């Protein structure tokens, strides 16, 4: 067997191991502290840079500093929904319980990011536009995203059997994905109060580097936060679902001693 084939075989085996709740619980427990470390190592300098080193905006003054929490939260709220839908699809197609559980644990975290996006956007809107809220395309579609998250959480809680609940809520997540391009392109499709795209990953961004860098650092920090929060929630859920199984018995005994 060539080393190339054996490498892919090892990768496949490693990937399949994540489907085992016991292995997931053990491995994620080792990863979580590193994710928190990454989050703090990025979020602290990102916040200091954004709130005290970056210059005021020539038009908006200091009110633009809300960008360093608003934009990373908004990106994350959309990314989490996409991740939730992909995990739900994996769970549905391959019947992997860990994927279903991960998908369901995405919803409360995504809802939190969406709430922060809406609240901080509203607080930024008042000094910039003169209003806390406007029913324009971007704001309304982001509010719809929050309702979708709440729908996924509600549907999951309404069905007693966890796997049936995950499949039903996962289906809603898959349907809800249609809202993501609507959020993204709302500022192009409709005349909105919300500003157009400022940051482009493939073209030139219309934001100065002194503001862009802390923003990107905060955006990466949000990903570390999401990873840590997701793994923590999923570990709890798996532990509860498998409370009668031997691996949980061993884990609980291990954590007690």
């Amino acid at each position, binding site marked *: 067997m060539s080393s190339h084939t054996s490498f892919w075989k090892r990768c496949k085996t490693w990937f399949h191991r994540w489907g085992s709740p016991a292995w997931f619980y053990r491995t994620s427990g080792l990863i979580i502290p590193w994710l928190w470390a990454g989050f703090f190592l990025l979020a602290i300098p990102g916040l200091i840079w954004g709130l005290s080193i970056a210059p005021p905006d020539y038009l908006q003054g200091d009110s633009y500093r809300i960008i360093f929490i608003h934009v990373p939260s908004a990106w994350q709220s959309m990314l989490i929904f996409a991740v939730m839908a992909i995990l739900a699809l994996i769970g549905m197609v391959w019947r992997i319980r860990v994927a279903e559980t991960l998908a369901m644990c995405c919803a409360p975290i995504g809802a939190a990011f969406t709430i922060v996006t809406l609240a901080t956007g509203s607080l930024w809107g008042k000094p910039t536009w003169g209003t806390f809220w406007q029913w324009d395309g971007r704001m309304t579609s982001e509010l719809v995203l929050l309702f979708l998250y709440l729908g996924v959480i509600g549907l999951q809680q309404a069905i007693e059997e966890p796997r049936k609940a995950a499949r039903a809520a996962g289906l809603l997540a898959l349907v809800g994905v249609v809202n993501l391009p609507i959020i993204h392109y709302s500022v192009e499709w409709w005349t909105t109060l919300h500003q157009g795209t400022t940051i482009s990953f493939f073209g030139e961004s219309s934001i100065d580097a002194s503001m862009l860098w802390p923003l990107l650092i905060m955006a990466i920090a949000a990903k570390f936060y999401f990873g840590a929060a997701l793994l923590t929630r999923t570990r709890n859920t798996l532990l509860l679902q498998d409370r009668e199984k031997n691996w949980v018995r061993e884990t*609980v005994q291990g954590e007690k001693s």
Partner: protein
Amino acid sequence: MNLDWLSGPHAVYILPAYAIALAVYLYTALAPVFSGKRQLRQIADIHQHQDQQPS
């Protein structure tokens, strides 16, 4: 370090924005940590109770 904005007119919008974010993210991160610890204790109690039952 320039924190002049703290005494400026926009501080009343910036500070609540960060305070809300901090509260929501702290709750989202810490709630499962505490419920996880409680859950472990409950599961341990269930197992102990099961072990004490005569077979």
